[in-house]
């Protein structure tokens, strides 16, 4: 079987590099402007697109990208808190998708499967960078005295009013990696403790602890913002 990307997108042997690049950009541009299908049609379309992409249809693959790029990129952004890294990880996720889509069995929805694939890509990358997820098990044994201690001495303030979206986003970005992973995967992405523990290769208790500490840290940061006046 020939390479579908090569078959259709292979440069013309008689044209120069500029012409190849122009063709490539034009093709990419035409894909970018294509609007995703309406939500009601998306599941049906997705099944069909996936079948076509598995068969080597690169336009179908491009449309799968268009359907899922926002969710996957956003996930990567939240997990690593860095735009450039998020772009690299989004790219790697879709490359992995292209390699592995033929192994998708439909046990879960394609969207869920792709989401998990992206989480695994990010975690693999973090492990390569030396983030020791296993060491979080030891970390959970230590109570975060500083965060807890603040609640003991006096009547502490409670977060007042609505939480500012940007403030929360920045606070999440600034969380230590282990805390951020637990918070993003549980509170934002909706994974349960068991799923996160499996993905991070650590105990469920550890996940709960990291999640709790993440929330405590976010509370500290948000309460320190101007406009959060003490009560009591």
């Amino acid at each position, binding site marked *: 079987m020939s390479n579908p*990307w090569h078959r259709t997108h292979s440069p013309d042997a008689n044209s120069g590099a500029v012409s190849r690049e122009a063709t*490539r950009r034009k093709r990419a541009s035409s894909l970018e402007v294509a609007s995703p299908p309406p939500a009601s049609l998306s599941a049906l379309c997705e099944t069909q697109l996936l079948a076509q992409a598995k068969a080597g249809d690169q336009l179908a693959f491009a449309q799968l*990208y268009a359907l899922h790029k926002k*969710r996957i*990129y956003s996930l990567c952004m*939240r997990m690593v808190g860095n735009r450039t890294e998020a772009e690299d990880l989004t790219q790697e996720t879709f490359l992995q998708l292209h390699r592995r889509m*033929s192994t998708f069995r439909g046990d879960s929805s394609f969207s869920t499967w792709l989401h998990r694939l992206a989480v695994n890509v990010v975690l693999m990358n973090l492990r390569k960078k030396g983030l020791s997820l296993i060491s979080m098990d030891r970390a959970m044994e230590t109570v975060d005295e500083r965060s807890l201690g603040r609640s003991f001495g006096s009547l502490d303030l409670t977060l007042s009013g609505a939480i500012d979206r940007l403030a929360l986003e920045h606070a999440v970005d600034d969380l230590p990696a282990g805390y951020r992973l637990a918070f993003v995967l549980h509170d934002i992405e909706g994974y349960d403790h068991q799923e996160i523990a499996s993905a991070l290769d650590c105990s469920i208790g550890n996940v709960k602890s990291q999640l709790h500490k993440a929330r405590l840290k976010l*509370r500290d940061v948000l309460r320190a913002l101007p406009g959060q006046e003490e009560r009591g």
Partner: protein
Amino acid sequence: MIEDANPMTCRQFQAQLPELMGSRENFEADRHLQRCTLCRALLTDLETIAEAARQLFPGVEPPDELWSQIESALWNEGKSREPEKNTE
């Protein structure tokens, strides 16, 4: 309020919070929580943050150039690799 600020009681309760909040059980009737303003405030804050996280964080679009990069990478990969066989 003095009796509500018992450090040991608060410390013990808060040490259990990760497990309590992680369970699906309703622990609003917990005796310490009923009496302790501090721990109730803490719980309210943590629940507010968790709820805010679910409602905030709208998706972010990747830059347009990303697809070009992916397409180029796929083209390069295609030169040395064929898609895996369907295992379904």
